[in-house]
């Protein structure tokens, strides 16, 4: 099939950037969206043009590196998939496709469609871990974990840090990501010890990075490729309230 592409091109962080039209022919419906961009890039390179920069790594939906705002939606028109798992059969011959980078104050564009998501790393560094002293592993039965909590913690831990929640949110809010990272530890006994300081520090870092506030529109949950639930945001709201009131620091 033949497609018209409107793609954001931006030389570097300082460049203003603009949408540029491309057209591409002989696209197979079995290609992934990123493979389609690979083909376009080869054509650009053969012509001596600068190829389009975009993020990707595993190409199997688990690393969270791929991004792209496609036709006004994070990771494109399907629900519950990353861009690397989006296939060209989701489009029709002759379609025009808008391709833009994630847009948020906290995610500056590096080049073209690639954005700097290290703000997420700094939020994790602020408290998204347990300080465990290494030593012999203790008997697993010493730390009873109810099955429901284990399941919820696991579901929260499936967040791949892609940033689709921020990209989709009209406020560029990182609440879904941060709450998933707070929840996966808050639900487990290993995480309880540092729970107060963790939530206070991670939320403070989230605010300092310039992410927006949560209006509870729920768009993040719907566009999240891993189906992270708004339940996590409610849990973080509770944890933060408890910690702000009770924390002695």
């Amino acid at each position: 099939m033949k497609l018209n592409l409107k793609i954001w091109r931006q030389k570097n962080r300082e460049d203003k950037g603009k949408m540029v039209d491309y057209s591409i022919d002989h696209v197979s419906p079995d290609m992934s969206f990123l493979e389609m961009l690979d083909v376009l890039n080869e054509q650009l390179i053969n012509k001596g043009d600068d190829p389009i920069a975009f993020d990707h790594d595993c190409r199997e939906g688990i690393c969270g590196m791929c991004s792209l705002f496609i036709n006004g939606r994070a990771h494109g028109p399907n629900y519950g998939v990353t861009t690397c798992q989006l296939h060209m059969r989701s489009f029709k011959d002759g379609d025009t496709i808008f391709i833009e980078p994630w847009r948020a104050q906290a995610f500056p564009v590096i080049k073209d469609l690639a954005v700097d998501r290290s703000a997420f790393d700094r939020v994790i560094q602020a408290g998204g871990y347990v300080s465990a002293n290494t030593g012999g592993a203790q008997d697993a039965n010493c730390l009873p974990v109810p099955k429901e909590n284990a399941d919820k913690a696991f579901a929260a831990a499936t967040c791949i840090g892609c940033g689709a929640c921020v990209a989709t949110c009209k406020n560029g809010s990182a609440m879904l990501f941060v709450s998933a990272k707070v929840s996966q530890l808050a639900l487990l006994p290993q995480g309880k010890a540092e729970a107060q300081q963790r939530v206070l520090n991670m939320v403070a870092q989230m605010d300092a990075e310039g992410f927006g506030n949560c209006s509870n529109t729920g768009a993040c949950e719907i566009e999240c490729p891993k189906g992270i639930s708004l339940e996590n945001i409610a849990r973080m709201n509770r944890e933060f309230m408890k910690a702000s009131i009770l924390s002695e620091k």
Partner: protein
Amino acid sequence: MSNSALLKSSLVKKYWMSATGLFLCLFLAGHLAGNLQLLISPENGARDAFNMYGKFMTTNIFVKVLSIVTYISILFHAIDGIILTIQNRRARPVRYVKETPSASSSWASRNMALLGTVMLVFIVLHMLAFWKRMHFGPIETYIAANGEELKDLYSITVLSFKDADNGLIVCMIYLVAMIAIAFHLMHGFQSAFQSVGIRHPKYTPLIKKVGYGFALLVPLLFAIIPFYIRFML
């Protein structure tokens, strides 16, 4: 850390939105209960009943305290809402060329600030028309059936909707404002619970249902009053 967090954090701003928003929902319910007396027919003493209620609302000490909490809540809610909205805009300085937000969120949830602004303009107009005259005049007094001297807010209210020149416009302003409240609360009611972390598989579906019911019923009953007065009295 926790001290500054209690004042500055994004989450705490939302705790205040939630608390003031839900308090204002209680205020709306109380205000509606009072206003529904305007649906009493004049032969059954609507004028005395409504004006007696007006006197109670402006003199009773308990009501006075409540009304001050209400003024503060509206102010705080509006200012906090505007601050949140400005910060939210700043968090996305470059907009998308193509957006399809309806794929993932409701219109009301995305336009709380617009709806709130409509409501704020309405609240100012509404207070200039009734609250200001009740407190600072000019307003006529008369002797009620039980011999009490009452300010005649009832006649001001009825006349403002029945006025030949402006009455219909006034009625329409009320209608628009009530539609804005309905949409504001269709998202806001349940959102206020999520903001403070109240979410539970058993109760959240109920909260959403009650929220929709409240958001539709309360503005509807409010909106009936001006049209009843204009066309049925």
